């Protein structure tokens, strides 16, 4: 027998050991590490590609006729000019392929002609002239609304990225540890359940931050978000990520069937996405369905993020959405820690 008796374990020490071990395990498991970020990058590239193909590729440069109230027209014309967009204050050439009607802090863009132009730069210019994104409507001559696919879907892409990290990257490995008997072994150490669960978070949280950072960089680069909006978006990302982790821990708290949890983890983001109001326009959904969907925490995240990324209006104030997300995170995390079992035979 060796001579070093165990001293009183320090929570910080156990947390550090567990966190470091989790990071190394995740690094060793290349396939797992790849899969938790794959869904995010795949969707992001898909949306970027689609947006380019639908709204940008091979389209002519815009030639714009601006109409409406002078108070709105003047700054817009200046902005368009500074951005190199050919614009006039009246239809004098007959060569224009887009019109912008500015009125009462609203702007309506109509794409005209056989060959509609690139219109996203127009929206950027209108926003830069002081009209909020939510007050800008773009349509073609037949009245068909034009959508900036990247901007509209960034909240959903961020949500998918976070959920993949939380569910596939956290819940599934946790259940695998239980299935393999590792949790049973760790359960015989003095480590507390809450410490163990919390220690799963740091390395995954870092992955979540990669997603958040990338979405933020894109938002800034594309001019989707202001400085104030970025601060608010960061808070939404932090709260959302923590909330998804809490749900992942709850999902992983008892099962020892990693395959089942893997299937559930693959389905949850898709269901949550369709229920968030970011895929189907809210206008087409019946009121009772909207009320039901608004009860879902995933909707709270998507709507809070959508406020800053997509200029959508949430069903309640963003700060209330934050409060609800925080409350749910705390409640679910505590519940997960309470019902967590090292081994399903401990029930």
């Amino acid at each position, binding site marked *: *027998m*060796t*001579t*070093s*008796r*165990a*001293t*009183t*374990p*320090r929570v910080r*020490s*156990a947390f550090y*050991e*567990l966190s470091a*071990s989790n990071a*190394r*395990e995740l690094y*060793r*498991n290349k396939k797992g590490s790849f899969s938790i970020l794959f869904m995010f990058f795949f969707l992001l590239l898909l949306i970027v590609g689609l947006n380019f193909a639908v709204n940008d590729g091979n389209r002519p440069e815009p030639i714009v006729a601006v109409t409406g109230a002078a108070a709105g027209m003047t700054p817009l014309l200046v902005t368009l000019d500074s951005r190199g967009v050919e614009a006039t204050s009246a239809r004098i050439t007959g060569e224009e392929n887009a019109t912008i009607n500015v009125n009462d802090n609203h702007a309506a863009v109509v794409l005209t002609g056989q060959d509609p132009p690139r219109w996203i730069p127009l929206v950027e210019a209108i926003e830069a002239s002081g009209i909020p994104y939510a007050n800008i409507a773009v349509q073609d001559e037949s009245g068909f609304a034009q959508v900036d696919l990247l901007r509209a879907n960034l909240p959903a892409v961020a949500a998918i990225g976070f959920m993949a990290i939380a569910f596939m990257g956290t819940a599934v490995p946790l259940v695998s*540890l239980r299935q*393999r*008997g*590792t*949790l*049973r*072994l*760790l*359960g*015989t*150490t*003095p*480590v507390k359940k809450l410490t163990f669960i919390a220690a799963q978070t740091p390395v995954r949280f870092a992955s979540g931050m990669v997603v958040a950072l990338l979405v933020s960089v894109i938002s800034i680069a594309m001019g989707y978000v202001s400085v104030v909006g970025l601060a608010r978006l960061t808070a939404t990302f932090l709260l959302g990520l923590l909330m998804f982790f809490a749900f992942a821990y709850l999902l992983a708290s008892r099962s020892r069937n990693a395959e089942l949890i893997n299937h559930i983890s693959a389905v949850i983001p898709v269901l949550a996405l369709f229920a968030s109001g970011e895929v189907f326009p809210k206008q087409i959904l019946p009121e009772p369905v909207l009320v039901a969907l608004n009860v879902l925490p995933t909707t709270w995240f998507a709507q809070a993020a959508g406020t800053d990324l997509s200029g959508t209006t949430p069903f309640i104030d963003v700060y209330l959405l934050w409060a609800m997300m925080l409350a749910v995170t705390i409640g679910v995390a505590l519940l997960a820690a309470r019902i967590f079992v*090292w*081994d399903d*035979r*401990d029930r």
Partner: protein
Amino acid sequence: MLDIRGVTKSYGTREVLTDVSFTVGDGCMTGFVGANGAGKTTTMRIILGVLSPDEGTVLIDSVPVTASDRRRFGYMPEERGLYPKMKVAEQLVYLARLHGLSPASARRNTADLLERLGLTERAGDTVESLSLGNQQRAQIAAALVHDPEFLVLDEPFSGLDPLAVEVVMSVLAGYAAQGAPVLFSSHQLDIVERLCDDLVIIADGEIRANGSGEALREQHSSPRFEIRTEGDTGWIRSQPGITVIDFDGDFAVFEAETDAASQAVLRHAITLGAVQTFSQQRPSLATIFKEVIA
């Protein structure tokens, strides 16, 4: 000393342990034997405090075991559970640290155990790359690395080759020699017989036999004797109070109704010539096991 008193446990309506009581003395190697599903693992998990009994208690030196006592135990679960992609030494240090050892102590204990278990050369290998036998040695090291005061080992010898069995037996015996109570389960009754001071036999969640190996043999020994002499032993058949079970010239196995009857046979044999062997047949552990669980 570990004292398990009146432990009862049910899962739903199924009672898996019924009034289980036994002790594991300081420095005592205690074998815990039973068929699959008899209740060994459940009992061990209750001893560790991982599972709560419905009734009964587990005491360490007359004090009930609490969650904070877990670090005092070295436990090897039947379902192994080491991280497959983690290196052996890294894994042991990690587990020792979780048990509260300082980094230096954790590394020292790890090196010491790897040496004693013959795994030093494998210290940098991942667990999944080891042979099953070496994985088992690593698992045993994981149970011992935090230098526990009590050992509870579920099937520590399964999957080990004879050489590894000897190594592990020697390590466990070393722990017991320094005063640690050691409880281990095994289906390999020959190992249990060789290694154990005490034996606990469990069947259907109930303790069927419990005590020192010697006491159990005494308790379950039959009044059966065997004798080998230089001459023919056929005369034994005519001895009063004797029934011959087996006979082969100079060798006989017989049952005696009383001690006096068996001693009379010995005395008579000596008068006839040299007696090469005369002994009471001792039941093997396997025999006792079969008898008590029947």
